[in-house]
């Protein structure tokens, strides 16, 4: 006890306490000048509620767009006579062919569709089409139209050298009178392959201060499903299925639920005009 109150010991204790105080002060100065004492949290988005909900009153079966598309299958034989392969151009990443269909020549690239047949690729003297998981081969005949034909192949395998390098997107957007129908497999594809969206469409947010006020379309790849939807460069997407797109989270929420929707509506601003684009999904 006597040792504890020795002047030397007290001196040492004071020195240690002073040292600790200096260190604490040092950290305090750093804290005040350089650090922040406030937690930065993401404010939960409470406002992202649908502006309205679409209710489909008609039974699902009555829309039956598949049934509308299906008759095309029965018309294959008529198409066989009508499609003539006139020319082929093969690049490393794409095949381009010229065909004659209903007395009109048309240029098709890999992935393009004519009369329900999708161009898969081309060899030196033939083009490969697919429809309903069947492959069809059209031979090139520059001299005679009558010799060109589309016929189903027994083997489904397409020579690997003519397969397009770009991943093929199944499904398409079809026009059925006034309504546009989106194939559900197309949505499923984009739901699972987010990167493929950005290859076909470029969008960026429009910011007003810290708030997002819609998403502007910077480009739409020609012949992509997005261009078939009628979306154009410069359009501003304001809402999807009644859900106002005023944050990345709202846009992402729509993307995450895209597999579960039965119809799609987009509210866009084109120029100064507000438009609503509506689609059915099957």
């Amino acid at each position: 006890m006597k040792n504890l109150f020795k002047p030397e010991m007290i001196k040492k204790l004071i020195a240690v306490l002073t040292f600790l105080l200096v260190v604490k002060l040092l950290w305090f100065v750093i804290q005040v000048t350089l650090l922040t004492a406030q937690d930065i949290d993401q404010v939960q988005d409470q406002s992202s509620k649908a502006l309205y909900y679409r209710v489909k009153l008609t039974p699902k079966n009555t829309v039956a767009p598949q049934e509308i598309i299906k008759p095309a299958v029965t018309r294959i034989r008529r198409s066989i006579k009508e499609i003539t392969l006139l020319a082929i151009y093969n690049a490393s990443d794409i095949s381009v062919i010229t065909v004659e269909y209903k007395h009109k020549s048309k240029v098709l690239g890999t992935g393009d569709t004519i009369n329900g047949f999708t161009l898969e690729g081309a060899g030196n003297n033939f083009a490969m089409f697919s429809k309903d998981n069947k492959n069809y081969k059209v031979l090139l005949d520059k001299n005679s139209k009558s010799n060109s034909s589309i016929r189903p192949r027994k083997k489904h395998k397409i020579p690997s050298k003519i397969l397009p390098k770009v991943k093929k997107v199944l499904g398409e957007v079809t026009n059925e009178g006034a309504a546009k129908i989106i194939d559900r497999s197309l949505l499923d594809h984009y739901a699972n392959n987010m990167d493929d969206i950005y290859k076909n469409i470029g969008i960026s947010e429009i910011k007003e201060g810290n708030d997002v006020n819609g998403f502007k379309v910077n480009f739409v790849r020609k012949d992509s499903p997005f261009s078939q939807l009628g979306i154009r460069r410069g359009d501003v997407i304001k809402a999807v299925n009644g859900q106002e797109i005023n944050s990345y989270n709202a846009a992402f929420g729509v993307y995450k639920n895209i597999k579960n929707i039965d119809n799609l509506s987009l509210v866009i601003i084109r120029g100064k005009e507000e438009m609503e684009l509506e689609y059915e999904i099957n």
Partner: protein
Amino acid sequence: MQMVKKVTLIFFASWLALLLFMPKAELYYSLEKILAKKDIKLNEKSIEEGLFSLNIKEITVYVKGIPLANIEKLNFFTLFFYSSLTIENLISDETLHTKIPALVKEAHVNHQFFSPMSLSLDANGSFGEIVGDVDLLKRTLYIDFVDTKDIGMIQPSLTKGIKTNGEEGWIYEKSF
């Protein structure tokens, strides 16, 4: 000898005092502030300061306002000459499963005073087991898949090559 003893004692006391009084939570908030400038925000349930560590529980990682990952527990530990970050149970959003693994059960990122410009890392989860390093000087990330499990989704991001142990296997390399 007495002098050496005294200097060592002062050095040790300074090191200890600096560690003990370090405003760990405020350093974490400052890190959050830096990340927020890059549109990355971390919402956490609790922050606990330890003597040499900081424990953060139930974190949601937001990127541009989108909740993309949940982490059950984060632990920062530092002795200045050795620091480590431990991540437990990182579950990523299903939309990211083609980019990053669905579940990281445990991951460690370590930094040592004697190699200040590199970080070593190891992790295990749904993808198997990985070891790797980050070269801060060359700004590269290299990951070896030591044991692979479910890498089907992230496989397009990986390359098959010769690993550091000389065997052929999956590796991931990236510059930043």
